[in-house]
């Protein structure tokens, strides 16, 4: 981004302006673009998620507003904006009002370090992944604040559960990131992607068995950190009414959901960056613009596939109990990541350059698992003999 700002200041449209003002303008422009990108994503995810669940449950889902119900999110947003913005009488009003913005801030901040293509990133921090881990953890402050200031026991319980959950799952997530960082030797998001190749067996996910395990642990931990099913206890409609968001209405409630759906993109993008080779594409042409578009596409396909996976998991798995949640984290994921990290270090000492044979084997195994998965799907289809309707549009 700095390079872009400098080029505009020296010979671009901003020539003659004071440097600070020029930087401020460019920062504002980027923030505007990224904010809109997030908003659009979160909105469209809310529609897509409902359509995905609907198909899993043999329903149709929202399909009335616009073509295939695509504009449903706009209608929902409008409805929420027009609702009354209630603040409970007993609530701690300033905290209550500030909480959604804090949650938003934590999650918006993480977008500063998310890459889109080679050189297309708001800020290529040299501590990128560490920064993202720290920034997304800020969301917990907002949720805890919302729970406390609502002056409602269910909201408080929800907030505290959320804090416990997010902080616990930081450990396996962080350790899984460390496993990657050992191999990449850098914390920068762009640097990690540049270490990988465009071929699937050059992705970190298939580099060796330990990174594969790290990928799954990281994905599960991020699901828990993003308050996604099966770990969506903080909002648990059926037990805690709506957890920390109980007393919120209108736009403030919407902001929390925006964070949740926006977080989906962060989950997908971070996983794609660390394990799935990010924006890597083969060098098929010399045209820089075409390459940039292809890289964006490659990144978005991987990210949106992972987002779809999150929605699919949400349609599949029931919510875990709060003790099961903690058991999974402290008794299973944390020891597993530590052992995994040690094994990964050992492997790195033995094969500092990695081994193509191991990568290819892991990739072959992955394809095998995928093929077996499709066989199981076919088996269930044969057994149920349903009417087939492949198109996602109805």
């Amino acid at each position, binding site marked *: 981004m700095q390079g872009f700002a400098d080029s505009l200041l020296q010979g671009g449209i901003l020539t003659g302006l004071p440097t600070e003002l020029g930087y401020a303008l460019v920062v504002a422009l980027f923030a505007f673009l990224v904010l809109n990108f997030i908003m659009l994503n979160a909105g469209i995810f809310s529609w897509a998620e409902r359509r995905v669940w609907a198909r899993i449950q043999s329903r*149709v889902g929202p399909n009335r507003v616009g073509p295939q119900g695509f504009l449903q999110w706009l209608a929902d947003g409008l409805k929420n904006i027009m609702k009354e913005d209630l603040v409970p009488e007993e609530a701690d009003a300033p905290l209550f009002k500030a909480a959604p913005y804090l949650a938003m801030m934590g999650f918006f901040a993480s977008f500063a370090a998310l890459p889109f293509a080679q050189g297309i990133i708001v800020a290529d921090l040299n501590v990128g992944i560490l920064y993202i881990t720290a920034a997304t953890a800020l969301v917990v402050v907002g949720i805890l604040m919302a729970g406390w200031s609502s002056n409602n026991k269910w909201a408080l319980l929800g907030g505290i559960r959320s804090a416990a959950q997010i902080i616990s799952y930081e450990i396996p997530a962080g350790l899984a990131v460390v496993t990657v960082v050992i191999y990449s030797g850098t914390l920068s998001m762009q640097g990690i992607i540049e270490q990988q190749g465009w071929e699937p067996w050059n992705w970190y996910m298939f580099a060796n068995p330990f990174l594969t395990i790290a990928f799954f642990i990281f994905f599960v931990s991020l699901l828990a950190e993003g308050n996604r099913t099966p770990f969506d206890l903080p909002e648990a409609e059926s037990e805690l009414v709506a957890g920390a968001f109980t007393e919120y209405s209108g736009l403030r409630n919407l902001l929390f959901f925006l964070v949740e759906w926006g977080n989906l993109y962060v989950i997908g993008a971070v996983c794609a960056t660390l394990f799935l080779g990010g924006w890597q594409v083969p060098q098929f042409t010399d045209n820089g613009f075409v390459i940039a578009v292809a890289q964006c596409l490659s990144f978005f396909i991987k990210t949106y596939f992972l987002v779809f996976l999150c929605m699919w998991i949400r349609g599949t798995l029931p919510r875990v109990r709060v003790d099961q949640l903690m058991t999974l984290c402290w008794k299973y994921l944390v020891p597993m990541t530590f052992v995994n990290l040690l094994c990964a270090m050992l492997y790195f000492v033995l094969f500092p350059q990695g081994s193509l044979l191991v990568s290819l084997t892991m990739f072959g195994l992955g394809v095998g698992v995928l093929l077996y998965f499709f066989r199981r799907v076919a088996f269930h289809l044969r057994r149920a003999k349903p009417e087939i*309707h492949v198109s996602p549009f109805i």
Partner: protein
Amino acid sequence: MAGYFANIRESVATIFEGMAITASHFVRKPFTIQYPDRIDIPIQDQLPFRYRGILDVDLEICTGCLACERACPIDCIVIEAKKNKETKEMVLERFDIDIAKCMYCGLCSEPCPTGSIHHTPEFEGSDYSLESLIRRYVKAPVSAYKVSKEPEMDPEVGPILKRGLRYLDEFATPEDG
């Protein structure tokens, strides 16, 4: 310790299988019937002839006998019929049915001699006010239908009477014939 690894194996295997089942649902046809507008045949046309929907009156074949008014257990039918002294025929001055009160029991359509009062397959009765749910069939006083021994030859009344009698017939015959 063995239980520990068995737990991991089991959860991975069951989640894998669960994901396979839900994935198979992605290509199944949804069961949803998209009432009211996105169906091939309107629901009203799929219902049986004697479906007990909202009441309707064919005033052309109403004899003004008041049998339905008497049969109604909740008095939602109000009829005013007078005998014209000169022409010696019944004149209907009022025939109101309060659909808001009607409980769709069908007791009024049983004693009707011509099948004039009958249920329709129409069931979408929501409205903005209670007042508009009162159906007023008589706009201006009309003379009632007079049953004759000869078959009805009037081209307008004939088909209506035929339909009404069919309605009564189907009621009289049990469903299995």
